[in-house]
């Protein structure tokens, strides 16, 4: 392995950015491809697929055999609101492989009794997110219904290009939220990325069912990353 490639790969991994080490197993030459880098031909198609799936493997292209080692940051889910939905979402997300954190400044809600074994911040989103910024491998679900708590986090999630942004509330509630986010400086394109009403439409009725709908939508957003922008890639 090229020492420079190793340094570059580790730098990307430390910064929670996706990268693929492409090794020609015939001659041992390798290089790091970052997400968004343009690679032509069959190799490019295979690389795009590996970025989406996170699955490493060999590929034949241009008469050569390449090994693609996909290094994807671990996705995480940040939930704004220590509410009933979050109580159900926390264990489900953990089982699905999406470590979850909950932020809610209301100390009556954010208690370790209600959320055992969960990373819980009884603090304002502004303060928590300043210490631990959001990124493209983070999903954010805002479920407090309280603009004072949700709005800042939603704007931050859009600016950080979180792979999923969802907000609880009816269409009517969301229409008002859109006005407020515009006032905060979010663009219409950004706001269009918000999933509201939140969750896949499975007819969820209880808090636990809404949690399932949110988790399913998060997974879908994660596994289809980049597809909107580039059109259908095989």
């Amino acid at each position, binding site marked *: *392995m*090229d*020492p420079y490639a*190793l*340094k570059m*790969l*580790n730098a990307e*991994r*430390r910064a*929670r950015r996706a990268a693929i080490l492409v*090794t020609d*197993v015939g001659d*041992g030459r390798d290089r790091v491809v970052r997400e968004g880098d343009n690679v032509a031909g069959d190799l490019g198609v295979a690389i795009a697929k590996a970025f989406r799936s996170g*699955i*490493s*493997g*060999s590929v034949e292209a241009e008469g050569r055999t390449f*090994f693609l*080692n*996909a290094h994807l*940051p*671990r*996705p*995480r889910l940040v939930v704004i609101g220590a509410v009933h939905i979050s109580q159900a979402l926390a264990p489900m997300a*953990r089982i699905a492989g999406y*470590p979850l954190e909950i932020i809610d400044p209301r100390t009556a809600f954010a208690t370790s009794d209600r959320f055992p074994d969960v990373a819980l911040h009884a603090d304002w989103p502004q303060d928590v997110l300043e210490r631990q910024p959001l990124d493209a*491998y983070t999903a954010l679900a805002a479920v407090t219904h309280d603009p004072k708590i949700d709005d800042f986090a939603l704007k931050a999630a859009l600016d950080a290009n979180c792979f999923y942004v969802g907000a609880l509330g009816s269409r009517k509630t969301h229409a008002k939220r859109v006005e407020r986010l515009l006032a905060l400086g979010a663009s219409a394109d950004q706001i269009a990325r918000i999933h509201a009403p939140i969750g896949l439409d499975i007819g969820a009725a209880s808090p636990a069912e809404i949690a399932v709908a949110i988790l399913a939508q998060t997974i879908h957003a994660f596994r289809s990353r980049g597809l909107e922008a580039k059109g259908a890639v095989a």
Partner: protein
Amino acid sequence: MLAPGTPHSHMFPGSLKKQTLREATMSDSIYLDEARDPLIIAEAWMKDGKDVAIATVVETWGSAPRPVGSHLVIDADGNFHGSVSGGCVEGAVVTEAVDVIGSGKARMLEFGVADETAWQVGLSCGGRIKVYVERLG
């Protein structure tokens, strides 16, 4: 005994127990576990002026214990971090890696795991793995 390059060679049972416990402990952290991450360790070794080899699982058949892409990193003295099989073939990979550090020529190793041996050492695996071993730099 173990014969790298030969499919269906037996595992080396003696080295199994060393790593399985550690591998079973899954971390919930979203950040790299730098103290244990093989590629981070390889970079640190390189900075210390050590000669290093990197082994990577490039293909698996059947129920292999470690997924494609897993790493074992080895220095010229045979110290190693990470795993390519949860302990089954690490001993053989380390030996090969020390040769690769010497020659600079990458090797593709293939290990088969016989079912009865796997059962004896408590691994319900019976798979096969292909491991690419290369020198760093």
